């Protein structure tokens, strides 16, 4: 029995391959308010709608939630067989996200190298878009992934 997919091992990723991830996610209070407060983020722009009436007019999604959501939307296809997440870099939040926005994720394989008999390191570039096809997120991620035996 295998609990994880057969096509997300180190050998399966090809340089330059670009993936459009199948699922989108509409952002809701559970996502933004829930995670913001779960992680002790005290900035009330993310959870006080009334305080936002003179600026954005509504609560702004915490960028940390957007980062986690875009990487999450890509996870089954890029990290289901990961042994370890190694790092993130060049993370940029390009457009503000609000409750009701729907996010989608894309991934390009930037580089890969064998590490040992069990694993290899892959560097991905991720993009996040919203329902208006605006780019809300981009960034790179390095992952240690199982090799096939």
């Amino acid at each position: 029995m295998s609990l994880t997919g057969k096509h997300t091992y180190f050998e399966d990723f090809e340089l330059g391959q670009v993936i459009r991830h199948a699922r989108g996610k509409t952002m809701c209070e559970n996502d933004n308010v829930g995670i913001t407060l779960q992680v002790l983020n005290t900035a009330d722009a993310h959870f006080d709608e009334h305080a936002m009436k003179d600026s954005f007019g509504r609560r702004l999604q915490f960028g940390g939630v957007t980062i986690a959501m875009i990487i999450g939307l890509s996870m089954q296809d890029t990290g289901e067989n990961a042994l370890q997440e190694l790092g993130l870099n060049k993370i940029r939040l390009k457009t503000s996200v609000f409750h009701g926005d729907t996010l989608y994720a894309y991934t390009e394989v930037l580089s890969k190298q064998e590490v040992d008999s069990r694993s290899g390191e892959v560097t991905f570039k991720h993009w996040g878009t919203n329902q208006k096809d605006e780019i809300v997120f981009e960034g790179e991620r390095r992952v240690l992934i199982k090799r096939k035996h």
Partner: protein
Amino acid sequence: MSEEDFRARAVLAVKGNKFEDFEDGQIYEHHWGRTITDSDNTWFSTQTLSFNPLYFNVAYAKTLGHDKMVVNPLLVFNTVFGMSVEDLSEGGGLFLGVDDCEFIQPLHVGDTLTARSTVVSKRISKSNTEAGIVTWFTEGHNQDGVKVVEFRRTNFVRFRDPQQGGE
């Protein structure tokens, strides 16, 4: 006893810092600390569709050599970030980006995170009269003092005195 309404007598318990409060090299030891529980990790991972069973299947995590479930690194990052917010960015201003984030070693459920940050740089943005740009280096440690994550974060940070900003 005052006859005045409580709202008229109340003094705001101000939170957060402004651009003028940061100096290069200044260190902040952030508040609270946070123990990551099983439910934190499972809920966060499933809520963000972070479908690697390392983060929600303890039997699977054991087959890969872990005694307990591995904490989702995005939860580690977000918790360390979250604890830094009151000192660094609650004063207002958009979060712009993160560079050089390294997950130095895995965290497991039941472990406790603490956070500290150092001011790396601050500068005035020509296009923004209300906020300047500040970069901090933030580090997260576990209960044994072992560093588990580090990253550089850049934000707009609101001026206390808007006169000093912009052109």
